[in-house]
């Protein structure tokens, strides 16, 4: 927020090049569409976009900071005021749901291209905001920006192939992979391309290193922790979980379960379809479970942690200044508190002074009874209940042990979003809280 006043001047040059790149990209796309595909309408549309981008580029390059295209301040404030972890998480979930439901529309190349353009333009316009740029352009964070685009691209690619295959399967045609089932040569088809990739990546890394040198920060100090104090980017999802769970659960149990779950997958997967080709329709359960776990519970949390979590681990809107002075209410309460005090209006059960260890333990159990009951019901009652309702088919195919493993893994995975929602709505801190033995859940 308080810069030296050079910001817009500095970023203007970058944005000029950026918009020019988008323009060139669209120009090439239009050319290909026109010459190779003969889609004149689309070609004209992208040409128009290219021209618009050229205008933006020249505005940015005009050298006058006032001319740099940017989102209106009102829009930015609106975005800032709307954003919060709940909206963000649920919003991404909703967005992914929409993308999934209407996947056959979104995978159309022209639609996808349009979405890509929209992303790029939105990004460019946002870059003119100093607070946004400060976070996004941090050399550490640039790869995360790349990650967003790469993920979008590969998801699109895979989804598109799956959509095509599903369509073909529906029409009784063989899958694309089956139809193009040709053998290829190690040389040149494999090794040569690898070599090319090596060279290209090398060149790319050199240029990157020259333009964006490795950031050097101040020496670590035992008396001053950086604020925000962030884990490496790939652990930011875990760090986000720490907001909702006790460290031992978010930091130890859940990650172990992720690994364990991934290892268990081949033994739990009884669906023989979808081997060697892309398909969604034939593996809906596996697909959705994976995408939910990967996208919603991992990637979006990384992005949240990288771009939206600021000093004191507070949530900041994308255009908000990361002030360390922001304060949020943190008066969360435990379930026993809710149950005994708020609901039953009586003090928490507490062992009389000088009671023996056993008596104390009894009191603790009494105090935590609601939480223990809820958790017990969730993990012990819910699986059988599911087995006789929606997972009836699964239970039949998997057998008791495999079914229970799968069901519990599913339920444990779901504890994260459930706990998040409980936190946002009820300010629930822990369902079970036994600080006496450092056990909180």
């Amino acid at each position, binding site marked *: 927020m*308080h*810069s*030296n*006043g*050079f*910001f*817009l*001047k500095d970023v203007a040059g970058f944005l000029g090049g950026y918009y020019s790149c988008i323009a060139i990209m669209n120009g090439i796309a239009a050319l290909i569409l026109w010459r190779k595909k003969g889609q004149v309408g689309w070609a004209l549309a992208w040409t128009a976009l290219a021209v618009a981008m050229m205008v933006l580029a020249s505005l940015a390059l005009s050298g*006058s*900071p*006032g001319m740099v295209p940017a989102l209106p*301040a*009102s829009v*930015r*404030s609106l975005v800032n005021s709307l954003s919060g972890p709940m909206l963000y998480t649920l919003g991404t979930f909703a967005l992914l749901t929409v993308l999934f439901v209407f996947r056959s529309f979104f995978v159309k190349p022209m639609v996808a291209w349009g979405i890509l353009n929209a992303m790029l333009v939105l990004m460019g316009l946002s870059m003119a905001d*100093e607070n946004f740029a400060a976070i996004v352009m941090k050399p550490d964070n640039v790869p995360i920006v790349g990650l967003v685009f790469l993920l979008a691209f590969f998801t699109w690619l895979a989804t598109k192939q799956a959509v095509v295959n599903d369509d073909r399967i529906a029409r009784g045609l063989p899958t694309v992979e089956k139809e*193009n089932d*040709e*053998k*290829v*040569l*190690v*040389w*040149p*088809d*494999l090794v*040569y*391309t690898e*070599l*090319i990739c090596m*060279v*290209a990546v*090398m*060149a790319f890394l*050199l*240029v990157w290193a*020259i333009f964006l040198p490795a*950031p*050097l*920060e*101040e*020496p*670590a*100090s*035992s*008396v*001053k922790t950086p*604020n925000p104090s962030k884990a490496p980017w790939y652990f930011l999802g875990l760090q986000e979980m720490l907001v909702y769970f006790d460290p031992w659960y978010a930091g130890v149990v859940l990650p172990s379960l992720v690994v364990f779950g991934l290892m268990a997958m081949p033994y739990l997967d009884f669906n023989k379809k979808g081997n060697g080709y892309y398909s969604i329709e034939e593996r809906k359960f596996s697909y959705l479970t994976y995408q939910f776990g990967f996208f919603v519970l991992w990637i979006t949390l990384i992005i949240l942690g990288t771009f939206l979590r600021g000093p004191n681990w507070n949530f900041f809107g994308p255009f908000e200044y990361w002030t*360390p002075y922001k304060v949020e209410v943190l008066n969360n309460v435990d379930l026993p508190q809710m149950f005994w005090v708020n609901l039953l209006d009586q003090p928490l059960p507490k062992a009389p002074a000088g009671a023996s260890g056993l008596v104390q333990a009894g009191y603790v159990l009494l105090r935590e009874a609601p939480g223990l009951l809820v958790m017990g019901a969730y993990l012990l009652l819910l699986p059988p209940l599911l087995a006789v309702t929606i997972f009836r088919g699964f239970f039949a195919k998997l057998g008791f042990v495999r079914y229970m493993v799968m069901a519990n893994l599913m339920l444990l995975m779901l504890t994260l979003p459930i706990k998040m929602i409980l936190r946002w709505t009820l300010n629930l801190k822990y369902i079970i809280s036994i600080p006496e033995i450092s056990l909180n859940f």
Partner: protein
Amino acid sequence: MAAIAQPTAPLASTTHTPMPATEQTWRNLKLLHVVFAASAVALLVATVFMLTGDHNRPWKKYAREFRELETWNAQSRIDEQDSKAYETRRDELEAALGEARRADLDGDLARAFIAEVRTVAEDAQAADRAELDIDQLQSQQDADQRLVIRGDLLARLRDIVKRTKFREDNIAGALKLRRAELDKNRADYELAVAEEAPADRQAALLGVADSKRQQVADANLAFQAANTHRKKLETLLGQMTRAEDEAAKAVADHRGKLAQLQKTLAQREPNAGKSLLELPVLEAFNSPIRVDQIWLPQLTLNNNFRDVARFDRCTTCHRGMDKSMPGAPSEPGYPEAQTVQLTLATPAARPEQKAGDGNDQLDAAYGLRLAARGLFDAADPTVSVVVPESAAAVAGLQPGDVIEAVDGGKTLARNVAVTSLLETPAWGKPLVLTVRRGVPQPYSTHPRLDLFVSDSSPHPMKNFGCTICHQGQGSATSFKWASHTPNSPKQAHEWHDEHGWFNNHHWIYPMLPERFEESSCLKCHHQVVDLEPSEKFPEPPAPQLVEGYHLIRQYGCYGCHEINGWAGPEKRIGPDMRVEPTFHEVAEALASDPGLVAMGDTFGRWVSDVRSGPDSRESRSRLRDAIERDAAAGADAKLSSRSHQLAAVLKDPETPGTFPKVGPSLRHVASKVGFDWLYSWLRNPQEFRPSTKMPRFFGLWSHLEGKQLEESKRYEPLEIRSMVHYLTESSAPFDYVKPFDGITAAPDAARGRKVVQLRGCLACHQHEDFPEATSTHGPNLSRIGGKASSLPQGKQWLYSWLREPSRYHPKTIMPNVLLEPVTLADGTVSDPAADATEYLMGSGRDWKPAADWSVETLAGETSFPMASAGSMTAEERTALDELALMYLKERFTVVRAEQVLATGVGDGSSIQGDERMLVGLDGADRDRRLLTYVGKKTINKLACYSCHDIPGFEDGKPAGAALADWGRKDPSRIAFEQVSHFVTHQLAGGHGEHAEHGHGQHGGADAASGHGPEETLAPELAYKSAHDEAHIDPETLDPDTGYFVQKLLGHEREGFLWQKLRAPRSYDYKKAENKTYNERYRMPQFPFNQEQREAVMTFVLGLVAEPPAPQYVHTPAPREQARLDGLVVAEQYNCGGCHQLRMDRWDIRYTPESLGEPPAFADYPFLSPHFTPEQVAGSLATDRQGRRKATLVGMPTLDPLTGRPQLVDEDGVPIEDGDAESVVHRPFALWQDALVDGAPRTVGGQNLLVPQDALSAGHHYPGWGGDLARLLYPVVIADEKQVNPNVKPDDAWGWLPPPLVGEGKKVQSAWLHKFLLNPHPIRPPAVLRMPKFHFDSAKAAALVNYFAAVDGAEYPYVYDPRLDDASVAAAEQAHPGHLEGALKIVTNNNYCVKCHLVGDYTPAGSVKALAPQLQRVHERLRPDYVHGWIANPKRFLPYTGMPVNIPYNQPVSQDLYHGTSEQQVDALTDLLMHFDAFAKKNLSLEAFLRQQPPPAQPGPAVPSQPAAQPRAAAVPGSTPLSSANSPAPAAALN
């Protein structure tokens, strides 16, 4: 996913026929080739890009450029050397050499040589041949032939010497071998002994060794003979060719300088090999251009977890940093670029036209040449050669200067410059040249080579590097990563555009900006005063920092903000500024304890000792013990519990603070000022005294609005009122000083005015009646009458204060000026103190506090009414209740607090602390009790006790943040609150003009003035968000304000501090809403202007508590330490207010012989000035301009009428105003011998008339002190003129406070120490006495040591044999009547007693002609000084009226003392140094004894009498010495 290699498919098989499927590749191979080619090209481009990037790193460019600069410079020096003058001189020398070669050889020497040669048989033949040559030479007449033969002969002789040397070396070789053999044989023998070999074997080995020893001895003899022979030959040959050798050496030397320069040039110039190594890619291996780094393993860099060695690579770019001018090690070789105006004289007529580049014509006309191409820009007309003493040199041109304009016409290229210099000038009229001198960054040299970087400085670069002082990232090799810090927003912008500069938050030690670069000095210079100008470094080393230090000392910042320089009793971490222990305050508190009387008299004595005695350690520790014992007595304790509490304060602290509280004591304030004055003073001290140092606490509302403003308006008047009430209520009674008895004259203001003027007040105080007195050491007295008359007893108080300041305030720095009754001309006796009181009471007597006082607020102005001392209104009462309730709530629950407010605390027995005051609140004096309570709470809140002694706050703790490491405070831990919005508002909006409200005349320089609101807004750079309604661009402000605003907006320390000093309460802007009234910021506003603020900031930012390794911390030698300790005391007590403590110094550059002839010289040898031959040679050296340098230390002569420095013409006649014709000269009285034109000018000689141009070409280093003496100089002359119209102006110095230069060598330490603590009159004509300071013995000792240390005199113990009785006895033996004779001289009417008081004898005549009492010389002066002084007083005190009584070699009458003048001087010295003993010898007690009844009491009768008494009564002896009674000094003071 698609590229699935089939494992069975053959790989490019040659043996099998390839299957058809493998022919088909999955991808288009052609396309792959294209992609591959493209990616390969991309990689190549990236690699080239990388290498180019490396080749173009900015530091390489700077290195190349700097090499060019050095080459250019070397070439220019060669050109300057290689001039016509050089050739002429070379030819002369060569001619001389030829001449020497033609000279005859000394035949005798040649024969002697041959004779010596013949002593060796082998050389007989050679000797014959040489002899032949000698004969030939003698017989030959033809000069040319002779030359040839002479050459042959010498060659032959040299050959002989060579051969002799060869033989000698052979012998030496053999000798060496023999010795080695001997060593072996000896060792063999010793081994055999150790092995207990058979005796015969031992004997055999010993025999071998013995024979070898003989051989060695023989060989040694042979060698010595050969050696002697060769040396003899060499000596003879040398004698023969001496003239020739010397001439040859002169030629070689002459050529050598040039050759050296040429060699340097050759080394610097890049050659083919070097250029090759610098090519891209190749440069990676062994490029001559390298990163330059200084490794500092001891000066570590703190990386939190460990300290790492410091690497400073700054000189990689700043290559010229340590380059000095040849021959002047502290003059920068490459000064930083600046533009100067020079006046160049033109010749009378146009020089002869010549073809070519114009250089010859320029040379002929002006003595300058222009380089073919400029340095940084090829087109620049750059001076390459300046011929010494030519017109160009006189104008001050130097090689390297770029002529930018001639007479205002721009000269953008060389040919334009040549034309302007040669074609267009009006011949005979001078030209004005605009010249760019020096080099731009990063090439320029450090500007203070005398202090830094150079090897001879105290901080050589190789030991200190750069970043230990400048900070920044030393290991960086590019501009932006070095963390340079711009000095203004504009510079930041320029740097950003030029070098990609950015504010790197990650480097925690960014470079200090230019404005704060002195801050770093504090890391090592913890005493700070060592950074003041000194004799060694007359140019102030760190003026801004020192100014900040003094401001902090004067304004007492350390009262609230502790600056602890110690991290434990042994570890010094920085400057130490803390309030001294408050022992005396505790004693004051004890003195008013009701239980004091019960504690007994001894206890009372201890109390009064600690209260006012400066040295009272013993009493203090006893006092503490006594109180603690009393406290232990429990219910029987006699003292109050408060006193018991205070006992802890009396403890000896580990490292006590040393600075006094800056404000006066308020313990007896009710006896000094009245309600109205005190109320107005607290409301706004500047209302009464605009120049006060007291900060303002109330009415600082410019950041408040709405409810918060209303609160302030309601509560502040009550707070002031209650403070006044508390101070008055708690004030202890004061015992005013009683006037003298026997005063017969009524107090008279006119006389009082004279007292104030002459008796020293003006050394510290200002007064509007004396505008020429400018000291701000003490308060301005112009309105003192208004203050004193605010109370009926005010006059009495003022009288007491003048008579005895420490009675009211034991710690005051105001001295007792010892005003004693004076007998007036009409015979009445007046009291000067009463007169002065009368006068001062009349000064500003009419001053009354304003009834309404307007205060600036966010919304505009509001007024603040004066309260009346009487009853309170209902409204006021409510406000008071609310205030009291606020404090009560901090102590009690809300209900209890309200109850207490309503009914009091009952009997209060269960309550400790201030709330006890509320006992009986329901009584009639409720208002009074509440006011006292709130007053005490308010005083506590505002920490008034940090500067003042206030009853009840003897153990107050510093209220503000400690500053010992504030310079490193993490900005994220500084509460900036909303202040940036406030400042933005203030600067951008309508509040700008009120920004400095209340700063009076001090704040004028500030910031926003001159910038309208529309200027301050810069829409083009500012992104305006919805939240930032007023965004201001710091670049549009003035550089200083802009800098700080930028730092403030960036939440950096500097910005915080700036605003904190500017408007400390503004941090409550939009913040007070969320605070209670008492939680608001409390720091008062100090009346600083922008410069003062920056000075204070320089100091505070330098407090980093990061001392480097001990060997780097400045630890002065004992003598220097003594100087510094004394300096602190001298500054504190303003010794310089009266006395000159350091003389002015002028480094002048004068035209040779323009300072007149040195006077003829005949003085005692021990007084002759001594200068080394180098110094004499240096004073004869002329610079390019033909000027010589001299250093004059002394005083400019003042005009006796005006007191301003005198201006005279070359004959010494004063120049009158409006006389523009005469050449201005300034006369100087030297206080230190100087060298002018190679001849000494001595102290006490004639005044030196220095032409103004010699002064302005040089440099002036101001002295220190003597302000009052200069101020009074014309006054006392004018006064004396009324009595004696022929007064000599120089005599007036003798009536004024003397300069104390040389004091250390003059007086005895023990005497000075006593004198400082209890001064007595010395010089009868002095118009004012040395005052008596109320300081302790340690402070006096510090001053004594200071003087000795400065002068290099012995201290603290002095032994001089001449003080020993034995030396006198010896002298008496050698010269009977030694002292008697001396006494005859003393008592002869022509000599000493003409002026000096001696014993009881007072010479007749005016008191102004009297000289000090000789009887006391022996205890006061050092023998050396007396000795020199008698010989020639003016050598020690240039203005003295004392004549040379015994000129050198002209002894006084032999009737008085038989002997030479030197003996007579010695005798007088001995007499004066033993006057006491000599006089005692003549003392007899008989007179006493005779007066007494004989048997009554045995033993001496006068043991209890003062020492002077018996002498007074002693009769015998004819000398007038027998009775010694010093004349009443006060009588002399009329």
